[in-house]
């Protein structure tokens, strides 16, 4: 049984299931294992406090799901694209991050992720794990850990908690 499973793993090699999604005119891929769930935009709540955190302007909404608050990153803002029209939200597994995208295409199995050519030296080196060739199309595979850093999340959580309890802040100020 162990030998059979090892052979299965060998045959699978670098194959990976990815979810194809669109932002504006571009198609991207994300590892299927990185996504816990796909939701629509109905339950999103706009976040007001990000104006005080300009570097986190890409976080425009929050989403409450199964008792957890997700911070929703707008994919077009994250990728420095013109504003688009998101209709779907990818909730990332094992984190408080969700990503708003225009549409979901399908799940495909890719045989390999090719490294980004050395000539690319900008922010894309952090955005993408590499690129996949899917039916002659070059599709960037996004790095699910690139949307928000641990430090960004800490800032967001602190600002979010503050925004929920403004009365406490005011009372503190008065008594001082």
């Amino acid at each position: 049984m162990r030998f059979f499973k090892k052979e299965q793993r060998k045959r699978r090699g670098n194959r990976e299931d990815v979810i194809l999604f669109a932002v504006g005119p571009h198609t991207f891929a994300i590892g299927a294992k990185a996504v816990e769930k796909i939701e629509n935009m109905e339950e999103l709540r706009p976040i007001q406090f990000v104006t005080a955190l300009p570097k986190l302007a890409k976080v425009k909404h929050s989403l409450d799901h199964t008792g957890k608050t997700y911070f929703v990153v707008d994919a077009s803002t994250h990728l420095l694209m013109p504003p688009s029209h998101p209709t779907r939200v990818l909730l990332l597994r094992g984190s408080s991050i969700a990503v708003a995208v225009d549409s979901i295409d399908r799940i495909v199995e890719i045989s390999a992720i090719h490294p980004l050519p050395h000539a690319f030296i900008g922010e894309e080196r952090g955005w993408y794990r590499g690129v996949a060739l899917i039916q002659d199309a070059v599709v960037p595979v996004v790095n699910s850990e690139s949307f928000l850093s641990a430090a960004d999340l800490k800032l967001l959580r602190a600002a979010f908690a503050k925004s929920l309890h403004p009365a406490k802040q005011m009372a503190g100020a008065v008594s001082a």
Partner: protein
Amino acid sequence: MSTPVTTPLRASKDAYVLFPLGKKRFALPASTVTELARPDKMQNFPHTTPLLTGVLVRRGHIVPVCDVAQVLVRPDAPARKFYLIAARKFESGASEWTALPVTGECELINAPMLPRTGPLPYHVTGLLSIGNEIIEVVNLEKLAEGRS
């Protein structure tokens, strides 16, 4: 259809590939040039690297397209018709193909390179004198930095 650069001239240290950008021609050492490719489907995705306009898929390689015309001829750059595929080296020691959009057919010549004289752009390594024409020999690595 593509035209590989594989004539005996290529082996000479004085062999260069001349490529046109509008009315002006430039040169690359022939040893760095792989092929001249007809227009191919260039694909793009979001990135922030200057001069890169997309990628091509050639013989299983993902080849970045570097629009050097923006550095070499600036606003006078006409529509590019072919891709000159050349090898580009990086500080890490890696080497990869790069596609340079050019405006016409290229020419393989054998001529001694003259040293740089006077104030020339950063990416020019020398000059070729061909008839009445002075052609700048460019260094692809310096050219791709985008400095002038």
